[in-house]
């Protein structure tokens, strides 16, 4: 139809940038973990990838946002995060799952999942030597024995059940 050219309702297009990336920026696998596992692993990613992250932020700071200039540094950040997630999945899959499923039930509030977090932190420290450390605070809240606000989640009983299963497995 001739008139179709002038009828704006018939112009369909996709929200894709047609410009190719330059060749010196390598391909990278995107992080496949969803929000709860990412939140659960965030402090370990921070612990391992600190130099890459700081490099990236410095680049952004120096290049006025650095949308194009910092792609290389950004890819390093992505690769580092992927490596941490791979390690956690390899060595602490069960603890990881216990923690992020609790987070998913509890509106992603870390304070309501301290029991499973303790298990995860221990496993990750034993296997990967990564430690959760909250920067810029007086007290590391996740190490406090009896915090006032603990939530009312099923986390305690589920963690106890998990521990019992684990011990039973270790015996067999």
């Amino acid at each position, binding site marked *: *139809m001739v008139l*179709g050219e002038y*009828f*704006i*309702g*018939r*112009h*369909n*297009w*996709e*929200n*894709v940038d047609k410009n190719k990336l330059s060749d010196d920026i390598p391909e990278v*696998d*995107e*992080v*496949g*973990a*969803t*929000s*709860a*596992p*990412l939140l659960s692993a965030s402090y370990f990613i921070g612990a391992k990838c600190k130099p890459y992250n700081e490099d990236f932020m410095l680049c952004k700071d120096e290049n006025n946002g650095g949308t194009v200039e910092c792609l290389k540094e950004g890819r390093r950040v992505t690769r580092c995060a*992927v*490596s941490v*997630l*791979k390690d*956690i*999945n390899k060595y602490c*899959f069960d603890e*990881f*799952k216990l923690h*992020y*499923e609790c987070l*998913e*039930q*509890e*509106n*992603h509030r870390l304070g309501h999942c301290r029991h499973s977090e303790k298990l995860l932190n221990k496993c990750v420290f034993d296997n990967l030597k990564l430690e959760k450390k909250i920067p810029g605070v007086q007290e590391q809240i996740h190490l406090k024995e009896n915090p006032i606000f603990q939530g009312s989640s099923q986390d305690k009983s589920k963690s106890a059940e998990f521990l019992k299963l684990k011990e039973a497995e270790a015996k067999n």
Partner: protein
Amino acid sequence: MPVPFEGLLPYAIMTAFFGLAGHGTGFIRYWDNGWKNDRFNLDAWDEKMMERDFLLTGVKRGQSSDPIAPEHFKTSHIQLQRYWTPYRDQYFIFRERLYRGYVTGEWDFS
């Protein structure tokens, strides 16, 4: 003076039905979230992450701990875009009229 139980029957009925409505709605919401509790107090970041979760898993409230995203995630954000016009559904091209059965009489409104 003890109250005869007949006087309390309406209250029992009211409690039962309000309870049924509330717990029933709660149960349906819990089921609809994939046996998870509701999210609340969400900010823009949370909404964005939940959209990303949906693109990754294809399920509402789905979670996965895979380190590397599946292949389709690279293109899953692509949408067909169009300018808004009040006549958007009125002027079909002839091919589309044929396809939807306006011409042949075999209507398909799906």
